[in-house]
């Protein structure tokens, strides 16, 4: 298992390295750099442009820029933002905290809604309740998350005259305000993920019900509740935990539009505005974090799975 983990880590490292190179090249291929944006329609003679390019190191060949950046990163320094002048690590970290809070709360909401839905559907497989839940699932999977967000905004405002506050405050500053701001984003993201959960749990329950030992237990006349808790729930717990990780990865990747829609200063919005502002160090640092988090979560899920599942432990 140690060897396997090492191999996974190595592969993840190579992927991260390649991803960083891809990002580096891609963002530099986007036409128009930060210098053009700073000068705008004000003109600025070639000397001015030259001076600014030099200031940002944009006058060096791309491979030199990359190696310099990589060297910094390997020493734990993500560089400095070109617009804000602050260390990228801090900016990105702050934004990630917002996204992570959103992600974790969404996960809780999604679990709380999705798991019971899936259990109910699975136990009633093929019957009316199952069909209704399946219908909800399909609609949930079909609706774009940002559109649900739009509908919630319209609905909240039209029906109860409520709209979320716009100035973000962290849970430490003002928890109540923080939760009000996050409410609609959590609901819009949570619905999709709840539905994904429900699907997954339903499937697990259905296949658990088909297992021989469960059938035997039922045939033996064990009380339903006991069969449920002893055999079915236990059986789906392991895949459920690992599925949670996958959902978290998905949420973190899927918040871009939601954060923009609800003015949340999270990682997705940061990446979007930094791409627009051509603040390349922030784009590079932010994406490196996203990639790193996704890769390490995947490894973690893998390890967890092996640890939890006795068959995999050998």
């Amino acid at each position, binding site marked *: 298992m140690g060897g396997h983990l090492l191999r996974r880590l190595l592969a993840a490292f190579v992927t991260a390295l390649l991803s960083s190179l891809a990002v580096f090249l891609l963002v530099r291929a*986007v*036409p*128009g*750099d930060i210098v*053009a*944006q*700073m*000068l*705008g*329609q*004000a*003109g*600025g*003679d070639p*000397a*001015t*442009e030259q*001076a*600014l390019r030099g*200031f940002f190191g944009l006058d060096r060949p791309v491979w030199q820029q990359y190696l310099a950046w990589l060297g910094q990163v390997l020493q734990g320094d993500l560089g*400095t*933002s070109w*617009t*804000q*002048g*602050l260390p990228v690590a801090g*900016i990105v970290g702050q*934004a990630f905290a917002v996204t992570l809070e959103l992600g974790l709360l969404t996960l809780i909401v999604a679990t709380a809604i999705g798991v019971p839905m899936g259990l109910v559907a699975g136990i009633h497989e093929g019957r009316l309740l199952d069909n209704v839940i399946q219908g909800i699932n399909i609609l949930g999977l079909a609706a774009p998350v940002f559109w649900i967000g739009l509908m919630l*905004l319209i609905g909240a*405002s039209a029906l109860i005259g409520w*709209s979320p*506050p*716009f*100035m*973000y405050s962290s849970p430490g500053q003002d928890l109540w305000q923080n939760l009000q701001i996050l409410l609609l984003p959590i609901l819009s993201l949570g619905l999709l993920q709840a539905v994904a959960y429900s699907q997954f749990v339903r499937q697990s329950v259905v296949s658990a019900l088909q297992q021989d030992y469960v059938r035997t237990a039922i045939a033996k006349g064990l009380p339903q509740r006991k069969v449920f808790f002893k055999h079915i729930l236990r059986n789906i717990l392991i895949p459920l935990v690992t599925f949670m990780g996958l959902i978290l990865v998905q949420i973190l990747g899927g918040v871009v539009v939601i954060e*923009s*829609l*609800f*003015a949340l*200063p999270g990682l997705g*919005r*940061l990446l979007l*505005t930094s791409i*627009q*502002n*051509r*603040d390349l160090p922030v784009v590079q640092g932010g994406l490196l974090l996203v990639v790193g988090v996704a890769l390490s979560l995947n490894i973690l899920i893998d390890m967890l799975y092996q640890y939890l599942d006795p068959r995999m432990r050998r």
Partner: protein
Amino acid sequence: MTRKIDRRTFGKGTAGLLLGGTFLGGARSVRAQYAAPAEGGMRGGKLTVGSIVEPPALDPFHQGADARIQVTVLMYQGLMFEDASGTAKPLLAESHELSEDGLTYTFRLRRNAVFHGGRPMTAADVKYSYDYVRNPENGSPGAGDYATIEEITVLDDHTVQMRLSEPNAALLMTLTNKYGGVVPEGYFDDQAARARMNQQSVGTGPYMLAQFQPNSFLTLKRNPDYWNESSGLLDEITFVYLPNAASMLVALRSGRVDMAVLSRPQDAAQLEDAANLEIRRFPSFNQKSIDLDLAYEPLAPLEVRQAIALAVDKTKLMQAAIGGFGTVIGTMPAGMQEGWGAPVDELPNQGPDLARAKELMAKAGHGGGLELTLTTIIGYDWMDPAAVTLAEQLKPIGIDLQINKVDLGVWINNFRSRKMGFTFNDWGSQPDPSLLFYRHFHKQPEGADFRNWNDGPGSELLDKGRQESDPAKRRAIYVDFQKRLAEQVPTIMMFSSDHVVVSSRKVKNYRHHPTGWYFGLADAWVEQA
């Protein structure tokens, strides 16, 4: 008036509001900073301003974005101020003199100006700041504006002299607040100083930076040492950055923001029924225009450009783009028309005149039709409806208009590399015709000539206009230039959109400046319960 009403508002537990508001005793006699005297103005209180555009950074020397200028004018100040009337008035300078030959300006400085943090401003700081901004090596977008300055000398602690290489009637207007501002001598010696401007302001303005949280908010606090005691009345101003126009309307209605300048003036119609809000319109120096790049092949023939100008119905375009909240213009932004504009009925190629336009198209050999691509910018809400309307207007003269929406960064890049093609533009300047026209329309290398116009006669007029100091003669020169511009059509100025300010009724004495910058906040105050 000597009554002193102490209206302390305790309670509510709002942090930072302990002092409450006090009426300004006898404020009537003192001239407020930029707007009308803050009569009966109340000190204290907080104001929340909503905005959709957010400054990428707060460095007034290197960052050219309009969203930056809007807010930094409250923190940084130049020697002069761009008065709404279209003339430059003294700000950090107390007075100025011009030598007989028109080449030497002498500025006497305000003696009580103090930098944020407490150090008094002296002539050495002024020299340093303007020397820094005008040196192209330092990378300021404003450097070109100051090109006619040859030397700046300190005469004494409170007197500065600027010597020019040639007369420049626009100089005073360039010494205003768009780029740069006066900062402590040697400020940029430290490499990290530029970046620090996002955490700490170092200007002389009525407000100083408290906190800038990109993608979220910007908070300014009152500068306690501000040199004009009757200005800068609010304790705190917070700009909140909202994601879109719809959420702005919600925020205004619900009182989550106290004031906003609408990014889409026509949205005012959606707020008319809100009793707690006041909606006011202010004229502007901005212009929404169609730019025509002469190096873009289909636009090279003069007839095609003239035909387009004649086919355009500016009134309908404005209606589609911003509703009725603006002014159709000829060759001068609405706020400057009175002072500098050529009478619109004297300008050639003002449509719509489809018959003549068709004739011109046929003459150019495009009787059978012509395909054109119009570039618009993502995030500029007025451009989408205007683009589809323009496409309809150009159809009858045989032009098939494709629309190409691009990211702002891409657009600026094309614009600056003089490959703009056929595009919408949205820009403004300080209220001086030379600052408005010179860089955009003078041929290279003196001007940037973004549209590849390369026009001899036009450039000559621009040179003459810049050197002429007599206002009446100067005006005549620019009228001639505008006629040339309208005849040659490197640009079609469509309309200026009004600044529509929506504010809660407790906001008092706010006047929006025609540049769109928040000068007015220096004199605004809020009624406190």
